[in-house]
C-alpha cells in the first residue's frame, strides 16, 4: 500500500512542514514514481523511530542524523550477513 504525501502526513499525524524538513535531511526517502513520491509502511515506521529519538530519548537533530546513518549501515550489514547465510544454505541444499 503506497501513500502520497497528503495521505502519509495524515497516516503519521505529522505536520507537512516537519515532513518537508525531514525529506530535506534525507531522513525519509520516499520511492520516486511517475505519480510523484510514494510512501510505504516502512516510511511510517521510520517516522515513528525519528519521533522516539527526538521526543522519548531527547536526541537532538544532529544526533538523529548520526543515529539514522548508523542504523542504515547496520541494516546494510545485516542484509549482507543474511545473504551470506542464504547462499550457504542454498549451496548445502545442492
Amino acid at each position, binding site marked *: 500500500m503506497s501513500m502520497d504525501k497528503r495521505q502519509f502526513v495524515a497516516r503519521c499525524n505529522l505536520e507537512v512542514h516537519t515532513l518537508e524538513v525531514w525529506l530535506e535531511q534525507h531522513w525519509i526517502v520516499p520511492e520516486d514514481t511517475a505519480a510523484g513520491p510514494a510512501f510505504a*509502511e516502512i516510511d511510517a515506521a521510520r517516522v515513528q523511530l525519528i519521533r522516539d529519538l527526538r521526543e522519548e530519548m531527547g536526541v537532538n537533530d544532529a544526533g538523529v542524523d548520526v543515529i539514522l546513518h548508523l542504523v*542504515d549501515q*547496520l541494516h546494510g550489514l545485516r542484509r*549482507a550477513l*543474511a*545473504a551470506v547465510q542464504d*547462499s550457504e544454505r*542454498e549451496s548445502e541444499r545442492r
Partner: protein
Amino acid sequence: MPTPYEVLGVARTASAAEIRSAYRKLARKLHPDLNPGDKGAEEKFKEVASAYHLLNDPEQRRRFDAGEIDASGAEQAQRRYYRDYAASEPDGRYADASSFSDFTAEDGEFAEWLRRAQHAHANRRGADVSYRLSIDFVLSITGGTQRLTLADGSTLDVKIPPGLVDGQAIRLKGKGQPGHGTGAPGDALIRIEVLPDERFTRDGDDVRLELAISLVEAVQGGRARVPTPTGEVELSIPKGSNTGTTLRLKGKGAPVRGGGRGDELVTLKVVLPSAPDPELEKFVAGWSGGKAFNPREGRHA
C-alpha cells in the same frame, strides 16, 4: 512483578525530571530499532515504556502510589518497529552498504566470499509454492489433466501421470515464486489427494472391485459387463462361482513403473432377488443336496 519504580531504577520519591531522565537513558539502550538483532529488546523496552507512561502521568502515579491501580493498566499497545520493515525492505532505499565496502573492495578470501554471497543473494532462486489437488480415482489410474487454481487466481492445467497414489507430489519446475535478478523461479509442489471411488479401491498396482452376480450366474456361469478404470470390459463368470471368488482381469490395473500394468481383481458376491420368490422357495424346499451341505463345517468349532 517489579514495580514501575524498580523497572526504571528510581526511588519512589523521584521527581518527574528524574523519572524522565532515567527513562530516556534506558530507552536509548533498549529501543528495538537500536538493537535490530535482539528479539528480547522489544519486551524490555515495552516494560520500560509502560513504567514510564504510568509514572509520567501525575494522576496515574498518584493512583498507583495509593494502591488504586496496578502497573498492568499501562500496557503499551503492540507496534511494529522500523527494524521489522528494514529486514525485508525490497528496494533497499535506506540500507547502506558503505560500512563494509572496504571488505568487498579488497582482495582476499572474505571479500570474495561476501561478493559471491551478495551476487547469489541478488540472483537467488524463487521460493517453492505448495498446493493441494484432489483428483478422481479413475484419473489417478489413467492419467490426464486437472485444472488447478493458483494463489494469484490464475489457473494451471496440471498433467497427471498415470498411476499416481494418494499423497504423492508432483513438482512443476518454474511454476513457483519468480526468482530474483537472474535467479530461476521456484517450483510448484502439488500434493495429490486421490478421492475415494464408490466402485474401485487400490491394492498396490492392482485395482479391486466387488461385482454383484445373480444366483443363476453363479450356478450356470455367464458373461457380465464390468467397469474398469479404462472403460467397461466383458468378464466371463465361470460355472459354479461363489461369493468371494476373485477373478483377474489382466492388465486392467494401475500402470507399473518400468512398464506393464497391474490387474483388476473382481470379487464376486452372490445376491438373491430382493423380493421373496415362491418358485425359488419351492425349489430349495425340495433340494436335498442343498440341505446336506453345511458351509460352516470344519470352519468353526
